[in-house]
C-alpha cells in the first residue's frame, strides 16, 4: 500500500521504517514557531524544564505579531519576553516590529519554509505552509516549549482526505472561495484530526498566494494540516525568494497512486461563485448574491489568510476611483513590511487612502479582536480573515462575515455585502 504526501513527510522525520494513520510518533521538527500570545507560556514552560539552550538557534522562530506594535502595557510585556528570550538564547529568527509581519505571511515570503519540511507552530494557522508541500500544523505552547528543547514533537499520524477541484475558476473567485466552499460542504469538524490534500486541475493552475489561503483555513474544517503537492508553481515561488541560508527547493514528495484515503471529494469549480461565511461559524457559507441586504459598519482586508500583495491588488482594482460608503470604516492591513512597501510602490496605498480607508502597519490586530479595529456592540463587519465566531472581532454581540478581498472591497463601497460586479 502506498503513502500519501503527508504520511511520506512524517515518515521521513522519524526513525521508523513504516507508518500508518492512527499511530503515535515522535517526529523531528525543521522549524518551530511562536508569537506574542503563545510564546510567553512556552518560555515559562521552557524555563520550568530547566533547559539551558534551544535545540537549534536557526530552527526556532519568534514573531510578535498578534498584539504588536504593542497595544497596551501588558501586551508590551509579552512582546518584551520574546525579545529577551531571543537575545538570551541567540534565536536567529526573531522579528522585531519593523521587520515583523503576520507570521504565516512572513515565513514563506522570506524562504524559511521549504517543501518536505515538518513545521509546528503555537498558532492554529500554522497549517498555511502546506501550500508549499510541507507538513505543517498548529500546536500548543507546551508543545512549542518541548520542541524548543528536544527538536521533536509527538504526533498522531492523520488519515488523509482528498479534495479534487475540477473545471475552471469563475471571475472574482479565488482560493478563499474554494476553501469556504469546502468548509461549507464538510463542516467545521469535517476534517477533524485529518490531513486535507488539495489537488485537481484548478489547484495545478492556482497561484501560490491562493494556495496559501486555502491551506491556511484547513484548521477551520478541523484539519490537522492542509497540503498541496509541490510543482512548478512551488519551485518558481521558492526560487524567486533566494534565501541564501536555505538554498534549493526542498524535498518534493507526492502521494502514491495506491495511497489510502479516508475519503475523496470532487468539486466542479465552474459552479463555485464568490462566497461569504456568515456568523458564527466558517461553515455557514452562502453565495454573495443571497446576502445583498446585509449592511455593514466595517471592512477589514488583511490577515494571514488574505493580507498578501495579490489580495491588496484585487481590492485596489475594485476601489480605484471609488469612495468607501459614508459611515463605513475600511481597514487595510498588509501582512508584512515587504507587502506594505510593494503596495506603496504600486500605488495601492494611495488608492485605499483616496477611497477613504486606513492603511495600517502589519499586525494580526482585528482578526482576533486584538486591536486596530475592534467592533462595538451590535456592529457588523465583512472581513478577509479566517474566523467569525461569537465575539471574534470584539463585542460578543457584534458579527463577522468572511469573504475574499474583492467582495470585501465591493462591500466597502456599497455599505452592504456586495458582489464585485456591482461596483466595477
Amino acid at each position, binding site marked *: 500500500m502506498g503513502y500519501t504526501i503527508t504520511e511520506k513527510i512524517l515518515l521521513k522525520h522519524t526513525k521508523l521504517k513504516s507508518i500508518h494513520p492512527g499511530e503515535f510518533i515522535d517526529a523531528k521538527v525543521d522549524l518551530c514557531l511562536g508569537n506574542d500570545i503563545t510564546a510567553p*507560556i512556552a518560555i515559562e514552560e521552557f524555563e520550568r524544564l530547566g533547559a539551558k539552550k534551544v535545540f537549534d538557534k536557526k530552527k526556532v522562530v519568534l514573531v510578535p505579531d498578534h498584539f504588536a506594535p504593542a497595544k497596551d502595557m501588558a501586551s508590551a510585556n509579552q512582546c518584551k519576553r520574546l525579545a529577551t528570550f531571543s537575545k538570551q538564547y541567540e534565536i536567529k529568527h526573531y522579528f522585531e516590529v519593523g521587520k515583523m509581519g503576520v507570521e504565516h505571511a512572513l515565513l514563506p515570503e522570506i524562504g524559511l519554509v521549504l517543501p518536505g519540511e515538518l513545521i509546528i507552530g503555537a498558532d492554529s494557522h500554522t497549517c498555511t505552509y502546506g501550500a508549499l508541500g510541507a507538513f505543517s500544523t498548529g500546536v500548543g505552547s507546551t508543545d512549542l516549549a518541548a520542541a524548543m528543547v528536544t527538536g521533536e514533537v509527538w504526533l498522531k499520524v492523520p488519515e488523509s482526505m482528498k479534495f479534487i477541484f475540477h473545471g475552471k475558476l469563475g471571475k472574482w473567485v479565488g482560493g478563499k472561495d474554494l476553501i469556504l466552499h469546502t468548509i461549507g460542504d464538510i463542516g*467545521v469538524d469535517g476534517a477533524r484530526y485529518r490531513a486535507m490534500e488539495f489537488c485537481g486541475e484548478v489547484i495545478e493552475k492556482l497561484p501560490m498566494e491562493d494556495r496559501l489561503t486555502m491551506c491556511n483555513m484547513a484548521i477551520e474544517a478541523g484539519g490537522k494540516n492542509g497540503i498541496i503537492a509541490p510543482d512548478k508553481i512551488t519551485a518558481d515561488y521558492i526560487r524567486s525568494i533566494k534565501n541564501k541560508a536555505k538554498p534549493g527547493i526542498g524535498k518534493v514528495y507526492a502521494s502514491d497512486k495506491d495511497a489510502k484515503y479516508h475519503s475523496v471529494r470532487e468539486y466542479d469549480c465552474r459552479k463555485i461563485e464568490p462566497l461569504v461565511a456568515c456568523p458564527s461559524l466558517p461553515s455557514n457559507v452562502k453565495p454573495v448574491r443571497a446576502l445583498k441586504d446585509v449592511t455593514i459598519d466595517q471592512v477589514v482586508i488583511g490577515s494571514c489568510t488574505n493580507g498578501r500583495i495579490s489580495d491588496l491588488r484585487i481590492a485596489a482594482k475594485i476601489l480605484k476611483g471609488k469612495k468607501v460608503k459614508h459611515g463605513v470604516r475600511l481597514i487595510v492591513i498588509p501582512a508584512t513590511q515587504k507587502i506594505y512597501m510593494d503596495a506603496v510602490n504600486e500605488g495601492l496605498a494611495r488608492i485605499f487612502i483616496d477611497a477613504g480607508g486606513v492603511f495600517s502597519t502589519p499586525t494580526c490586530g482585528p482578526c482576533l479582536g486584538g486591536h486596530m479595529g475592534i467592533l462595538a456592540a451590535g456592529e457588523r463587519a465583512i472581513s478577509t480573515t479566517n474566523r467569525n465566531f461569537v465575539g471574534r472581532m470584539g463585542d460578543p454581540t457584534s458579527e463577522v462575515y468572511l469573504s475574499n478581498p474583492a467582495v470585501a472591497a465591493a462591500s466597502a463601497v456599497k455599505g452592504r455585502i456586495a458582489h464585485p460586479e456591482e461596483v466595477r
Partner: protein
Amino acid sequence: MAYRGKAHRFGDDINTDEIIPARYLNTTNKEDLAKHCMEDADKNFAKNVKAGDVIVAGKNFGCGSSREHAPISIKAAGVSCVIADSFARIFFRNCINIGLPIIESKEASEKIGPGDTLEVDTVAGKVRNITKKETYKIEKYPPFMQKIIKMGGLINSLRRG
C-alpha cells in the same frame, strides 16, 4: 483519578474564542484567565463554577485557535474534567500536555443534563450520573497518552523521561 461535581452544559463547536476571548490574552496569569473562563459562551460561568465541577459539551469542543490559555483557564477555574462528544485536535493535545482530564463520550454528552451531579473515574473507565442514576462507560486513552498523563503533563514527562 476520580472526580465529583456538577455538570455545566454547552452545545456544539464551542471555540477557544468563547472559552477565553482574545481580549484577555495579554496575560499568562492562571487566576486572571480563570476569571474570564467560558465568558463569551456563558458570562456567569466563572462566578457559578465550583471546584470539581465538570464541563459537558457537544461535538468539536475547543475548535479554533491554539491558545493554551483555553484549557489553562478551565483548569484554573476549578473544573475537574471536560466531557464532550468530540474535541478539536489542538485543544485535545493541549489538555493532554497540561494534564487537564478530558473524556470523549457520545453517550455521556447526550445524556448528561445541566446541574447533574457526576462522579468521573478515569481509572475504572466510567462516569456515574448520580442525579439520573446512570453509568456511562468511557474509553481509556491510548498508552502513548496515558504515559504523558501519568507523568503529569508533557513537561513533567520530559523532566523525568
